């Protein structure tokens, strides 16, 4: 009897539409996040993540509407991240129907935001998203990994491991650990990064970035991930959730 490894599809949503390609057969409207969420749910997704990449804050209400419509139909946990800057943003997303909220850049400039969210809503709603990469020329950190912003384009000089530890102390309930080195490579998850964070924090870790084939998932779990996130490999129909779960089972991992 043990908790199952979670397989979590991530959908990038821009002004109410899923962006990046989506390639399900017999889907009427491939860009509709609600329809996609229902589809992933029926395929066995254990949770869903919406990443709101809407540039204009005026279009945020569209995101809230999508969250509400998804939560009306899909009875699994829904995390929404992207552009969350304040306790009020978290409140609005939870009221819309999100179960958890992902916080990233805003917490880097204002770490107290993590305490404020956890104190108000409980640690279970707070997912800290970290975009980490190996230090590049001119930057050093103790762990060798630094936190980046702007989709990995800007380094902050902040030690990614220390940030993970600090965030857990401040009340993050979970870490979405995205490797900017592995992201988009489809060469597998960043196992050294996962191992490093696992050895130093005791909250759940969602591994993100680098999944390209079925054999990539079990090593992330062996490195210490409690959940695996995947985006493009799922959207383009290269891999299915059931296939991923089968590969995990074959490797001795427990899945739902």
């Amino acid at each position, binding site marked *: 009897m*043990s*908790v199952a490894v979670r397989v979590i599809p991530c959908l990038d949503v821009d002004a109410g539409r899923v962006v990046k390609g989506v390639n399900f057969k017999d889907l009427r409207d491939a860009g509709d996040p609600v329809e996609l969420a229902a589809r992933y749910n029926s395929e066995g997704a254990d949770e869903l993540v919406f990443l709101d990449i809407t540039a204009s804050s005026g279009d945020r209400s569209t995101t809230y509407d999508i969250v509400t419509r998804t939560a009306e139909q899909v009875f*699994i946990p829904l995390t929404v991240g992207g552009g969350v800057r304040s306790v009020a943003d978290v409140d609005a997303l939870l009221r819309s129907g999100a179960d958890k909220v992902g916080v990233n850049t805003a917490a880097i400039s204002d770490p107290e935001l993590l305490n404020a969210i956890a104190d108000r809503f409980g640690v279970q709603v707070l997912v800290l998203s970290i975009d980490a990469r190996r230090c590049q020329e001119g930057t050093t950190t103790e762990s060798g990994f630094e936190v980046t912003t702007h989709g990995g384009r800007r380094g902050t000089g902040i030690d990614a491991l220390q940030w993970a530890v600090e965030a857990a102390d401040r009340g993050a309930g979970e870490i979405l650990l995205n490797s900017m080195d592995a992201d988009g490579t489809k060469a597998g998850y960043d196992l050294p990064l996962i191992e490093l964070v696992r050895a130093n924090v005791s*909250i759940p870790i969602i591994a993100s970035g680098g999944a390209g084939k079925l054999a990539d998932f079990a090593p992330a779990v062996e490195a210490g991930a409690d959940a695996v996130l995947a985006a493009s490999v799922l959207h383009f129909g290269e891999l299915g959730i059931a296939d991923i779960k089968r590969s995990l089972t074959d490797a001795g991992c427990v899945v739902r």
Partner: protein
Amino acid sequence: MSPSVAVLDYGSGNLHSAQRALERAGAVVTVTADRDTVLAADGLVVPGVGAFAAVMDGLRAVKGGELIGRRLAGGRPVLGICVGMQVMFDHGVEHDVDTEGLAQWPGVVDQLHADVLPHMGWNTVDVPADSRLFSGIADQRFYFVHSYAARSWTLHTDGRTAEPLVTWSEHGERFVAAVENGPLTATQFHPEKSGDAGIALLENWLRTL
């Protein structure tokens, strides 16, 4: 006729997911703290997320403990979910803060001993044979998010009333995942977030109303 269910509104975060899931399971749902509505409904659901002490503060503000006690005294069904289950015990200890609960059951809710906390995700349950709540779904996984739990169960009847049915789960150690005790039912996991299995469990509970 569809059973009527009141979801107790005391400022807890996940009221609407409970509402939507109960509606999916076939109930007519009102989210309310109105005394008459809460007492008159066929079933009362007490959701709860966040800190034990904060949930107790919220319940106190709407006289939730009294309403729950009145219903139970009259044999009227109540379902507690997550922290809404935890507050049914004598007390809860979080970060060395010891808070009095509603004391429907003896015992304490405190931190699980596990390598990774919160216990977050889909876990199996060990269901007693006579369970109605888990009828047809005892082999399913349910969605948990919590760091604290009742790690022991001490209430036993002396045969005059039915023995409480206790369902267990395990994360680092064994803990109470659900209880069926006369009119008072509770789950540590979130049936409203447990997909088809969770909806089926709510349907089972609605059938007892």
